[in-house]
């Protein structure tokens, strides 16, 4: 029997390779988005509770979906660790997406602090999924620190610019044994598909859906694109190298035996 092609994160298996963000759109759209995305994992943030708003996002997320809280708002490792512990106390599992940004203009992740936080949280038993700028040395450090996946950005967060860092994500896919989940900057299904064809393990998207005219329909489009890209990757997509025909002397003419 063919082994199921599952995404494995910290010992948990998922057949969906689409991680759905829940920011920047109405709570009432979440259920349809999750359904049409086929998503099994949804990201959340941790914020000061508001007593006025009696509805909570947890009321809108369907049963069985794994929650992936992020540490957005953290400016260094210590703040990220604090947020992660609060998130775990909310009682929704051990997953944590580390997001540490010191820069409020471009929102680029601080790789150094991210490594620090990963080390601390992995030791505390979290399933750590660090969001990072795609740097091979950092990815290795994250793997050694105990990360369950590495989440390189494709382009500045919210930019919808696509695989701007393609070459570097490609290197991470080649060199790092952990799942490489492309996060941030993916603006359209075709870009998600391209990342999956390269061998990315999953796609995380939020803004691309939040800014679409019809959110559930876009969620379905992403789902299909991600599945198509995965299949292409598994089928052994051959990238034909451009090498013009050359009529030079044979290189192997010297061989005798």
């Amino acid at each position, binding site marked *: 029997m063919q082994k199921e092609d599952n995404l494995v994160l910290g010992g948990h298996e998922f057949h969906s390779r689409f991680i759905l963000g829940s920011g920047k*759109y109405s709570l009432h759209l979440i259920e349809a988005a999750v359904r049409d995305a086929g998503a099994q994992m949804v990201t959340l943030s941790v914020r000061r509770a508001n007593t006025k708003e*009696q509805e*909570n*996002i947890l009321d809108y997320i369907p049963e069985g979906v794994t929650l992936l809280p992020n540490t957005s708002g953290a400016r260094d490792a210590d703040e990220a660790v604090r947020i992660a512990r*609060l998130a775990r106390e909310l009682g929704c599992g051990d997953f944590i997406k580390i997001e540490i940004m010191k820069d409020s203009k471009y929102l680029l992740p601080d790789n150094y602090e991210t490594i620090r936080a990963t080390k601390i949280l992995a030791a505390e038993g979290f399933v750590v999924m660090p969001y990072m700028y795609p740097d091979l040395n950092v990815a290795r450090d994250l793997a050694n620190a105990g990360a369950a996946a590495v989440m390189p950005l494709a382009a500045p967060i919210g930019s919808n610019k696509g695989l701007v860092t393609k070459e570097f994500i490609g290197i991470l896919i080649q060199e790092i044994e952990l799942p490489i989940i492309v996060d941030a900057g993916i603006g359209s299904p075709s870009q998600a598909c391209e990342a999956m064809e390269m061998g990315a393990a999953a796609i995380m998207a939020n803004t691309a859906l939040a800014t679409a005219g019809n959110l559930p329909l876009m969620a379905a489009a992403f789902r299909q694109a991600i599945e198509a890209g995965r299949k292409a990757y598994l089928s052994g997509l051959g990238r034909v190298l451009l090498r013009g025909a050359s009529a030079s002397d044979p290189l192997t003419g010297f061989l005798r035996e």
Partner: protein
Amino acid sequence: MVRINGTEEDVAGKTLAEYLEAAHYRIAYIVVERNMEIVPKTEYAATVLQDMDEVEIVSFMGGG
């Protein structure tokens, strides 16, 4: 005075459970941090808010 989610409130002497109920928090969806320490839900009734306490009450929101 007790500083709760950044706002000064005159609730010193009340228990945490009393405060949360009066303010209509849904206990299942929140976590409380008092002076940087997480307060387990089972200790809300026994936790008396003190003058100068810093309290953060957080819950999940949408996010990417």
